[in-house]
């Protein structure tokens, strides 16, 4: 019999605590597979966020930090600058990265810190019970926007990938999604490329992964995937937004 699916060495065997249908799990899986396939498990250190993925340090089968809320890019900066030979990645939610940790991510990107950021955008604060995130969609209900996000009061959702790509410093910035098998396979390719850039010492690498939160969206897993496709994809287009190859001496071609 042919084995078609197996554990990846990039993850521990612990069952995760994520809700049924939540795509945090599948994103862990592809990051774990990439670490395993690139053979860097023994030389990698990851940084877990504060958010639903706070326990990621138990799931990734490599050395791990647990950082304070939003500061993973600062922790990763300290680690990577001191041990440039290691692969360093952060795994952060949208409250962690785009709200409380906005300063840390912008400046890490601008300094061109050579680590990889996996940015999980599920348009909500999952862990604390479904409050508005900076990425929450216009009119989307959350526990702190019970009548829907009012863009006159709360502004529009932040497109972090696009925002970071305005920085001159060379970087790899891409957006992928996890709502279908096909997109998840594509997400893995992009994450792998990000790690490869890092290993080559090329640049800061940032992969935004659109993700679902069935529990706090109040939808079934299947409906959540559809909602992501219908509501989030038009606002958060997929694809590479910035590539180091496009950089020519202080200017980005096309910028």
């Amino acid at each position, binding site marked *: 019999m042919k084995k078609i699916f197996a554990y990846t060495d990039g993850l521990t065997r612990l069952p995760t605590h994520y809700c049924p249908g939540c795509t945090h799990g599948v994103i862990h899986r592809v990051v774990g597979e990439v670490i395993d396939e690139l053979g860097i498990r*023994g030389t990698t250190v990851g940084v877990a966020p504060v958010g639903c993925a706070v326990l990621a340090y138990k799931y990734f*089968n490599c050395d791990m930090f647990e950082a304070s809320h939003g500061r993973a890019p600062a922790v990763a*900066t300290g680690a990577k600058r001191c041990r440039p030979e290691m692969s360093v990645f952060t795994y952060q939610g949208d409250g962690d990265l785009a709200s409380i940790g906005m300063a840390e991510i912008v400046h890490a990107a601008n300094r061109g810190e050579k680590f990889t950021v996996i940015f999980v955008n599920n348009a909500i604060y999952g862990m604390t019970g479904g409050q508005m995130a900076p990425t929450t969609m216009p009119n989307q209900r959350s526990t702190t926007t019970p009548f829907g996000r009012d863009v006159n009061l709360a502004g529009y959702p932040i497109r972090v990938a696009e925002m970071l790509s305005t920085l001159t410093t060379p970087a790899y910035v891409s957006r992928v999604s996890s709502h279908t098998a096909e997109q998840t396979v594509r997400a893995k390719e992009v994450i792998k490329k990000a790690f490869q850039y890092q290993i080559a010492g090329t640049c800061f690498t940032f992969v935004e992964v659109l993700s679902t939160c069935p529990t706090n969206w109040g939808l079934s897993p299947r409906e959540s995937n559809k909602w992501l496709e219908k509501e989030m994809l038009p606002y958060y287009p997929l694809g590479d937004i910035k590539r180091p190859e496009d950089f020519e001496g202080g200017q980005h071609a096309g910028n």
Partner: protein
Amino acid sequence: MAKVLMKGNEAIGEAAIRAGCIHFFGYPITPQSEVPEYLAKRLPEVGGVFVQAESEVAASNMIYGAAGVGMRVLTTSSSPGISLMAEGVSYLAGAELPVVIVNIMRGGPGLGGILPSQGDYLQATKGMAHGDFDLIVLAPSSVQEAVDLTIRAFQLAEKYRNPVMVVGDGMIGQMMEPVDFPEVEVGPPLAADDWALTGCEGRSPRDVNSLFLDANDLHNHNVKLKDKFAVITENEQEWELYSCEGEYDVLVTSFGMMARICKTAIDVLAEEGIKVGLFRPITIKPYPYDACREAAQKAKRLLCVEMNMGQMIQDVQLATRGAKEIDFFGKAGGVIPSVEDVIQSVRETLAKTGK
């Protein structure tokens, strides 16, 4: 080795390098900016890492990352910046990471001023951030001692896997004095092999973490930290007694640069035949309570002198267990009490003893 004339801030930077620390993350703030400026020049020469962080919040988390991968690391700041580091300090203490943080204090509260102060005594010693933890806090009273204690700070941090803070006032940071850099034998950070995140090749993965979701586990972790500090308290208290031989009616208690001004005042009074003792804690945490109590025994009355509104008095009260009256003299905001000010306040205290 020949003495070199150096500004306190630069001497602190050089002392860190001599202690084997070649990694610095920090943010500019007066009156400590010469530390990052000095290290920005010096660290590239020794193959080190210098990063100007985007804030003190970030700096305190960068040193978490650097120490977590087993590197000796320094950050420095001044009062408002230290307040922003409170988050990082709590996580560093929780994760038991050996780092050194230097606070070149300025006047507060709020933006306060940029002149010398000792207004962060309580912040440093009593509870800088959330949760149960203790820093080791060292208070130098000269540029030479700032050098020696910076080196000592790294040794203590690694011996106990605990953050150590060195507090100086703006005077120490800004003034120039001749200093001697002792020869320090430096190896790799102590015991980091046992816990640091160096890659899990050939061993199982580790984490650096302050999260304990199970209440009992967290309780036990708190007990462990408390027990550790009990050992530190037992082993690491340092203090100086000045003019404490023989009899005296008044004992002055003072720390840092202020204590040095008190010494001059005590010398002047001695010439008049008035004998005054001085107790100066060097570890303001753990506070040398027993040594302070012993020095206080001979005195009829105590005088606490500080560049703040009386923050150390409560430790002197704890030391003497309420057995002695304690007067206070101090100025805040950057007004540095003069020798004459101190002499005057000693005379007032002396008068209250009936002499």
